[in-house]
């Protein structure tokens, strides 16, 4: 077990820089999730920590030791790959024992460790099978087992659940979390699925175009997204963004014409009278018939999901569709106008040019 420290880590292929200096400190025993859209460089970061990709700049430390020039095998890490990367010609036992044999463990020790891991992962009885005789979930567990037996300092996961079907994914997600709570090994987990990220991680690193947009706990990211990108990426369905002009005193925002949104007490006076982007999550709208300040939303269409109802509509003549999530079942006809209100502290304001939170 160990802490992992990244200091201004840069990756460049020739002249094209793909990772622009990521810094973070991952505490001992922490479960950290690197999340971002496909192609943002999150896997590259993980592969640099693993030693599968050379680091073009910066320093990576594992357990206080700089590992920039160490081979993967000398970094004392284990990795679960997206396609599991099980050795197809070896039995489950040999798959798990491969790394131990190379590290010159005794036969008895190897057997003991593999048996223990197999029990933990409910793989006993499958040890003599070949990977192709296993189901997707079982293969996934073997890949986990191969990591566990080595008792490494750090676990790395590269989208390990993305090849499983939806139901199994939820189940394995829970098992992974439980496993982490038992083993307490520092884990770095890469995914593009924000639900996985929110449920698994102690902390999240949101990466966009090779740069860390925000690092923080799942709730921090949800409640105080640092940028418009993070706000849009975390949460499902994603946040609504509306262009608006702040009032001169920064206490309210004008959305097209007279529609006015009150902001929380402190407001944003520095940005008074400027155009900004207002972000409101679909679940933070309320219907308030009595409120004279309510914003009218003209319904376009609705989706009834049982527990919730999604309402899509427009404010006055704004071009973008606004998504609203209301608990329970509602039947609204299209063209119906709903009076909506939003608690001032649920409104996020972003700089129109930089996307940064105001």
């Amino acid at each position: 077990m160990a802490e992992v420290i990244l200091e201004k880590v840069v990756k460049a292929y020739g002249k094209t820089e793909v990772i622009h200096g990521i810094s973070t400190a991952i505490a001992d025993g922490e479960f950290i999730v690197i999340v971002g859209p496909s192609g943002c460089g999150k896997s590259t970061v993980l592969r640099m920590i693993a030693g599968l990709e050379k680091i073009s700049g910066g320093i990576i430390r594992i357990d206080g030791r700089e590992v920039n020039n160490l081979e993967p095998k000398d970094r004392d890490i284990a990795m679960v790959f997206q396609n599991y990367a099980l050795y197809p010609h070896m039995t489950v036992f040999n798959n798990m024992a491969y790394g131990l044999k190379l590290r010159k463990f005794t036969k008895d020790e190897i057997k003991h460790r593999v048996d223990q891991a197999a029990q933990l992962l409910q793989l006993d009885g499958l040890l003599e099978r070949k990977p192709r005789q296993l189901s997707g979930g079982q293969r996934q567990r073997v890949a986990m087992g191969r990591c566990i037996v080595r008792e490494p300092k750090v676990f790395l996961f590269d989208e390990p659940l993305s090849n499983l079907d939806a139901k199994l994914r939820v189940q394995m997600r829970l098992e992974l979390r439980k496993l982490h709570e038992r083993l307490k090994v520092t884990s770095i987990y890469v995914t593009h699925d924000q639900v996985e990220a929110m449920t698994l991680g102690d902390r999240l690193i949101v990466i966009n175009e090779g740069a860390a947009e925000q690092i923080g706990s799942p709730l921090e990211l949800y409640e105080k997204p640092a940028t418009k990108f993070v706000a849009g990426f975390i949460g499902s369905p994603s946040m609504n963004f509306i262009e608006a002009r702040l009032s001169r005193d920064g206490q309210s925002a004008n959305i097209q014409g007279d529609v006015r949104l009150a902001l929380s007490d402190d407001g944003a006076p520095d940005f008074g009278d400027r155009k900004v982007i207002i972000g409101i999550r679909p679940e933070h709208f309320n219907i308030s018939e009595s409120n004279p300040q309510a914003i009218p939303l003209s319904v376009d269409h609705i989706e009834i999901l049982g527990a919730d109802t999604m309402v899509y509509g427009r404010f006055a003549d704004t071009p973008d569709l606004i998504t609203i999530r209301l608990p329970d079942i509602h039947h609204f006809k299209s063209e119906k106008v709903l009076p909506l209100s939003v608690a001032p502290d649920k409104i996020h304001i972003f700089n129109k040019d930089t996307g940064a939170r105001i």
Partner: protein
Amino acid sequence: MLKRTHFNPSPLPYLLVTPQILITIIFFIWPASQAVFQSLLVEDAFGLKTEFVWFDNFIELFSDQIYFNSFGKTIVFSSLVAFLSLGTALILAATADRIVRGATTYRTLLIWPYAVAPVVAGTLWMFIFDPTLGIVAYMLDMMGYDWNHRLNGNQAMALIIFAASWKQISYNFLFFLAGMQAIPKSLTEAAAIDGAGPAWRFWTIIFPLLSPTTFFLLVMNIVYAFFETFGIVHAVTKGGPAGATEIMVYKVYNDGFIGLDLGGSAAQSVVLMVIVITLTVIQFRYIERKVEY
């Protein structure tokens, strides 16, 4: 179950397979049956009269020490050719699989020898190693090694082994490279993280996963060494010196077309035919079962 009558009988399918069947009959079945028939005949020296002798040609063949020598030479020749060309191709493919820059050039250059006809390849090697003209022979001479494959049987054998292997490397290289590229990269990465160095990764992960390719190539290389090396032998040594490089396929030609013992030669080609049929059967039987992982 659909009944046969559901389909309207049409001559089209038969028409479409006709060319293939005709080619097989004209170029394989007919000459092969001619060879089998010929192997049961003895012709007199002037070609005036032919006698049907049943298996006399075979009996004579299998009691002939020279034939067994030729058989032994063929075994040595083909196993060395297979080993040498497979080994070299494997190393080259492993290297080509690793490099990133200039990979296309490297691959193209390695595939070129395959386009060279066997006779041309043989002539090329013959010139390089020619005892009086050849550059390698000259260099060997400077180093104090006396090279003359026209007199030394072992050197002659070595030369045709080199020439035949060289030509086959491209073919093997292509298959090995394709086989390696079909192995997911994450497997070697996982092994690297597990603690295996490059050589160990190769032997424990890549090589076992390549075994179907290796087995296929082994059979193909033996078939190649048995049959397709005629041009090389003919261009380089003509079976000499003193029959030192007279492998079976060359002996068929020598006895039949030079020695004019048509019956004996046909009997030899029937033996060769049996060998290739056996190899093909092994190929089809085992390649998809035994070597599967």
